[in-house]
């Protein structure tokens, strides 16, 4: 039997545990999701995180600006060369873009594009060991909402998981709970890629008749209603042994998450481009559900 002297300790423990279990159960049934509490905690934590982050950035800036300039001249010349080449490419592609716009207008297809975006800075990462999230310095006051797509020029980063007034938590595509509707750029085969919790994405149960090879590029299909269509997502890095019907694949994301500094949040997606009925698309390898980026949504 618990003595009187020891009872308060157990009562306190049970109270704290019950409180946490209640919070968990509120999120299970989704009716009374304690989004307000998450928002409150984020509002408390993030100003401090921004302050420390700006201090760290300042120190890194001093290092980058004064001590890490060895070899800059050579790099400059190399970049100038690349710049000239890219300008020539742009001039060549300009005509193709005009032609595509004329054809779009002719066929009555809506303008392609990402939509309205807002730039955000990454200020922190998941403080627990088992999830892959980042914290950004833009929130509700900047128009950011739950489930907004987060991207960089390299490709897709993830989706907004929870939002506070001036900050938001973004679930990365590599998180073990993340799923994203995608397709192969060349073959147009659709597939559902899942995060592994590590550095890669995985695609299970794809029909091996499609002849997909290592190095194949994967882009977003837009069917998850989160990410705009056609954004670079990943490159196939390994293909598993042929099974009876299906095979498994791993893909390396196009975005280098270890060097992620700034991102774009798509706050108003562009009108989705209509899929032509005579599309050469093959049937979906994995059926894509409407809310595939993650099985759980946060208010």
């Amino acid at each position, binding site marked *: 039997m618990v003595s009187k002297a020891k009872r*308060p*300790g157990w009562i*306190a*423990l049970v109270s*704290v*545990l019950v*409180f*946490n*279990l*209640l*919070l*968990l159960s509120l*999120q*299970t049934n989704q009716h009374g999701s*304690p989004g307000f*509490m*998450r928002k409150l*905690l*984020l509002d*408390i*934590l993030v100003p*401090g*995180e921004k302050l*420390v*982050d700006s201090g*760290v950035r300042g120190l890194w800036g001093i290092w980058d600006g004064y001590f890490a300039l060895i070899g800059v001249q050579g790099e400059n010349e190399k970049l100038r060369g690349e710049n000239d080449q890219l300008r020539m490419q742009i001039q060549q592609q300009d005509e193709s873009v005009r032609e595509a716009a004329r054809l779009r207008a002719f066929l009555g297809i809506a303008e392609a594009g990402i939509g309205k975006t807002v730039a955000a800075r*990454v*200020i*922190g*990462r*998941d*403080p*627990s*060991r*088992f*999830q*892959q*999230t*980042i*914290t950004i310095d833009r929130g509700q006051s900047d128009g950011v909402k739950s489930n907004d797509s987060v991207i960089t020029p390299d490709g897709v980063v993830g989706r907004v*998981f*929870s939002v506070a007034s001036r900050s938001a*938590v973004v*679930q990365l595509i590599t*998180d*073990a*709970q993340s799923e994203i509707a995608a397709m192969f750029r060349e073959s147009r085969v659709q597939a559902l890629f899942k995060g*592994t*919790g*590590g550095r890669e994405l995985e695609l299970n149960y794809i029909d091996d008749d499609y002849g997909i090879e290592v190095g194949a590029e994967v882009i977003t299909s837009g069917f998850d209603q989160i990410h705009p269509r056609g954004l670079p997502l990943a490159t196939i890095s390994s293909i598993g042994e042929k099974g009876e019907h299906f095979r498994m694949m791993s893909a390396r994301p196009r975005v280098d998450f*270890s060097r992620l500094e700034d991102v774009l949040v798509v706050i108003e997606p562009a009108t989705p481009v209509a899929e032509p009925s005579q599309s050469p698309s093959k049937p979906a390898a994995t059926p894509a559900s409407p809310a595939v980026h*993650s*099985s*759980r949504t*946060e208010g």
Partner: protein
Amino acid sequence: MSRVQKIGNAGMTVLTVLAIVVVQGILAYRFRVFRYFDLPLIYCVYYGFRMSKPVASAFLGGGLGLLQDSLSAFPLGTNGFCKALLCFAAASTSLKFNVDQPITRVFALFLFTLADGLLVSILGLTMGTGGGAISGGRPLDLILSGVFNTLLGLMMFGFRDRYRHAT
């Protein structure tokens, strides 16, 4: 201890808790290796051993865990539940065992890290948000995390011992 001192100590503890979660987030973002560390867990064990107050430890662990959850994709309460339990266990352990022995600290830090990983995973599976540490090839990560946490925790305890003997 006067009332002013008590309030001051409580304020310092709250600030330390906030600082630990912020620093963990920033270090994990800047340095890849810090994803293996769990500063909030180390602080829970440290606080439990140092204060030997199970009630205060349970509240501190719960608060620390909730702050951790708010910056991650975990359902709110996952780390709150685990850290409250472990912080309480650490404080209770310090009442029954001599936690000044390095071997006790090594075992405690390593086992608490494993217990935290397992509890988070069990809650995750119950909530349908994944197996956390025990899914895929991640048990190895959990053991590695246990080793890193033990080493850092021992350093913190060593620092504390030196400070205590100096005063």
